[in-house]
């Protein structure tokens, strides 16, 4: 069957186009957030986890120092908010990080007070893995410097994983 261009492909297309023109289009923020280490104590959704840092959290944690807690929103991904895929996505994230030491690279605090960040555990980046599993979409006009999110999303789309299982082929 002949591939057709779909409206929902527009964000990915724009991101890819921007990447191909070398970033000159200026669609990507300059990602360079500071790192923070901690432990995920709750998974609110596939996009938001609770991270505790300080005495009880993270490799090299410094016992006795102040403990803090952040709601951490995984940057650049939009996961389903309801339905089986939403549950699957949350479970996916829980499996990856709940109760585990993680590290984040903080991008910004959003209006809800959430710490929008890249989230890592072991050698995996949670947002990328969500996209690669087809359990989230890449946010429009957003990607990392080298198109990592687009690549992961494309891999899921090609493999017809999760969100892309019923999608028409590109």
């Amino acid at each position, binding site marked *: 069957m002949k591939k057709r261009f779909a409206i929902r492909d527009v964000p990915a297309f724009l991101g890819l186009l921007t990447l191909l023109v070398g970033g000159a289009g200026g669609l990507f923020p300059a990602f360079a957030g500071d790192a923070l*280490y901690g432990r995920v104590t709750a998974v609110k959704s596939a996009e938001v986890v609770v991270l505790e840092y300080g005495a009880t959290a993270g490799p090299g944690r410094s016992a006795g120092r102040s403990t803090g807690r952040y709601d951490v929103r995984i940057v650049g991904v939009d996961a389903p908010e309801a339905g089986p895929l939403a549950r699957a996505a949350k479970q996916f994230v829980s499996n990856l990080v709940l109760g585990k030491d993680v590290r984040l690279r903080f991008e910004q605090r959003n209006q809800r007070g959430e710490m929008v960040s890249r989230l890592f555990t072991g050698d995996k980046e949670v947002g990328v893995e969500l996209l690669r599993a087809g359990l989230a979409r890449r946010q429009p006009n957003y990607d990392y*410097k080298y198109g990592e999110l687009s690549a992961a999303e494309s891999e899921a789309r090609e493999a017809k994983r999760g969100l892309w299982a019923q999608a028409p082929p590109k």
Partner: protein
Amino acid sequence: MRHELRLASFLRTAAFAAACLLAGSAAHAQLVGGPDIDASQKSGDDNECAISKNPANPNQLFLSCNTTGPGLFAARSLDGGATWTYPDPADKTIADGDAGQGPAACCDPTSSWDSFGNLYLTYIDNSLTTIVTLLSTDGGATFSNLASFSSCVQCVDQPTVVAANTSAAGAPVAVWIVWNQNNQMVARGAAVTGLGTVGGFNPLQTIPGTAGCSFGDVAIAPSGAVVQACQNPTGGQGPATVFVNTDTDGLGAGNFGAAVAATTTNVGGFDFLPAQNARSVDAEAGLAFDDHAGSPHLGRLYLVYTEEAVNENNDMDVMLRFSDDNGGTWSAPIRANDDSAAPIRSQFLPKIAVDDITGNLSVCWHDCRSSASNTAMEVFCTVAAPTGASPAFLANERIGDASSTSNGAGVEFGDYSGLDYLNGAAHPVWADLSNSTGNNPDGTARFDAATDRVTGGPPAPQIQIPASVHLGETCHGGTGRGTLNVCNTGHADLTVDPITSSNPQFAVTSPSSGYPVVISHDFCFPFEVAFQPSATGAQTGTLTIASNDPAHASTAVQVFGDGTEPDIRVTGSTDFGVVSAWRPAEKSVAVCNTGACNLAVASATIDCGEFVLVNNPLPAAVSHDFCLDLVVKALPALPGRRHCEITIASDDPDTPSVTRTLIARTPAFLGLRAGLAEPHGALRNVARQGSAFSLDLLYPVRPRLAWDLRLGTSRLDGRAGHLDTRIWALTPEIRYTLNPASPVRVFLNGGAGAYHFDPGNFEGGGTLGLGFNVPAGPRFAIEATYDYHWVFTASPTLRFSQAQLGVLISF
């Protein structure tokens, strides 16, 4: 005790100072910012910039930033920051996947330039796994991969690279990189021995007590010790503590020591403030050593950080502490920003740098003092001199030409800004959204990297040497003198310590005490320089002037002189020829000076008594190109050829003693003697005693030895029946005088001869004799001789003797 010489300085140098064109001072009590310069002028955002200035060429700067899209924004300036060009003009980025520009970068560039001209650029690679360091040896035009450090995956953050001169053995320059790795500060360092000659990095050092510590800095002490700073905890909005660790042996085997709490702060690792309410700030601790050799606090370590007066009241201030023991203990905090305490305004993202040439420290930061909403920032700077017990900052100066308000999109101003300070010019760099330059392609929508050139500073003396010192010709052993004018074109008193010389032939002799000499601004002081050449020819030296000029703790001045010397020449014949007591001879010996200095002729001595100086003017000085005549008279007391030495002593350093040989000989003598002749042997049978007469030509060779050519005749009376016998004898003889200096001189003589007997034939024979003579005045001597002759060829052998008395007459 300080020697106040202002008045003396004025009086002695008024004329010079009036004529001397004193350059305008470069030192001011006020900072001066130039126009802002948009160094990036590219689409997209550029923030978190680092800037470095080349100690080997302060006109060269390198700037790098995080940027939208792949790689890092990179720019270089060859004119002190006035204009900027790009290693990759096509996209103004490097480490973006293009070949030969380093592994692809994520972010967090940090750079440092060493005194060899090596430029180090360190950043996090795109996988967040590797700390990459590139090296440029051509001023940031091109880069090569120097090192890549990775020990875990997606786990590194906030690297800082610094390079500095050290006194450590084998490490004239040390380069260190610290970063956070898996929530722990780690470090590696290497020795640098030349341009492009970077040694291997030492093994990874995990810095004790830094678990959960990050967002810091590193600095290298002049000794080679290394100090890192970091903040703990890294999350929250404070309070937090800034810790430092010191590796006292630098690149040695030892590790960093225990963490020392340098200060607490109410600024947490993610502390939100109105001006950066999405991204937040940390305390942004920064370190810098004073490694200016002339600084009174050489080796002082400065720590700048952000404090919040009351936790979460957003009244953030830029604070400075210092340590004189490599971070072991710290001073009380000094507030760098001078805005009033109320209303509350934020100062944040401070950066510190020390000018290695002056020792001044500069601090720049983002400042919201002009923003009623405390949201718009301008870049401010201040400077302090390294003098005094603790730094005293000048009034803050607004450097940024306009204010920037964060776009709130998470990019904001970033986690850090950049600053370098060298040769009296500070260069802050920041993420600017004001577009005050009007050449941001995105207008006020996206951040560009803005920079400035900040000059001025504390009032400072400024040494100026109008000219090198030329002392001209000076005689060896003498002293030439000249003036070294030391001027102060600055705005504070110049103190000059004793001036040293690289060449002992040159020395500053006046003033000889009272140091340090204090020279008021806009005056000169004449130091007297003495030149005492110990060698001839052109002589040079370097006078080193240690002063409190912050830019020139040591000033070298060339001094020139020409060492000259007298040159003795002794001319004139010293062969007196034939000389006798009654016919003495005189000769003039010319003692000349062909050198450039006066010649002091001390004496002339003759090692025998038969030559005397008739006119002895010595000691005497002989000007250059003049001669002095010494008249020598030969008065031989003994016969023969005479050799004596005349020695002339002078101050010619090359030939302090000149010797010439005086030669003379005495004339021949004519001897006339008459006496008796006595036959012997067979001759006695035919002859009887008769008369004898001799004529001698006596030529003295030595006092004891003379040739004697004798012509004699004897007439022997014939016995009965025999005719008288006349004998002619010509005998070359040798005469040997036993005691030539005695009043009565006894001699022996002998030789072979030809004899003619009449009647008879020519015969051959010989003679031996003895005699004595007694000088009678300079020209005559009475002489008595006895000679015995053998005529061998006659048959039988004929013998006869002669006893004579006569006179020797000198020619």
